[in-house]
């Protein structure tokens, strides 16, 4: 499932993911969800940290992006990552239910959007869309 050669010199074929969420409880749960599916993952606490980790040279197959975060929210971070040329699958995860807000998030560059809370089946449906 992992793209070969995209992340040059990676040792394993394991899929990788980045969890972006300001809530510690959510980060812990999403980390475990991904872990159980055999996906190597890292968690950060806001959009700016997500951008910074990419600037440091890391890349991921999947980014789970929360919408409401301090410093840089999910919409801004998604836009910024796309501007930087990041083509990873970005799945927006949020509790917002207003169409307008969801649309803005999607238009920032999401590949998928799921309503929180994340479950195993929602995560699997996101992963199926990769490749």
């Amino acid at each position: 499932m992992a793209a070969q050669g995209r992340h040059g010199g990676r040792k394993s074929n394991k899929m990788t993911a980045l969890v972006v969420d300001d809530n510690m409880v959510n980060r812990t749960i999403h980390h475990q969800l991904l872990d159980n599916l055999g996906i190597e993952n890292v968690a950060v606490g806001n959009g700016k940290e997500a951008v910074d980790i990419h600037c440091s040279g890391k890349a991921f197959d999947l980014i789970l992006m929360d919408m409401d975060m301090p410093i840089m929210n999910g919409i801004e971070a998604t836009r910024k990552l796309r501007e930087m040329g990041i083509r990873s699958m970005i799945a927006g995860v949020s509790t917002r239910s207003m169409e307008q807000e969801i649309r803005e998030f999607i238009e920032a560059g999401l590949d998928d959007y799921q309503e929180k809370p994340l479950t195993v089946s929602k995560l699997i449906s996101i992963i199926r869309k990769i490749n």
Partner: protein
Amino acid sequence: MDLFQLQRRLVDYRASLYHEDFLDEQFSQLQDLQDENNPDFVVEVVTLFFEDSERLLNELAKALEQPIIDFKRVDAHVHQFKGSSSSIGAQRVQKACIAFRNYCEEQNVEGCLKCLQQLRHEYSLVKTKLESMFQLEQQILSAGGSIPM
């Protein structure tokens, strides 16, 4: 109480928590994430939730004590609380947060204060119940039994 009775008691207790809306399906999702590699996952996440919640309740109390209330700040805290309670399946706490946010939007101080009280109440209820449930689980494990699904 023998092992079988303990296990029976746990099953009934758990069922009552779902029945009374203290917990919802999301809590089952958490239990499903627990396995031999992560035998304490549920307790760990719930403990995190307790710590986070207590911090948020303090922040909320402080924010609502200010001479000029920053409703945006209050709302931000409630939003966090709503997020974490929803993630662990604490349904009644989540519902209390939703009501709270409505009052924030209206900038209604009275309403917010009442909601904070309600939120505290629901939180302390679910905390007590979860702690009782974990205690039962511990008793079963100590007696050499396994936790029934």
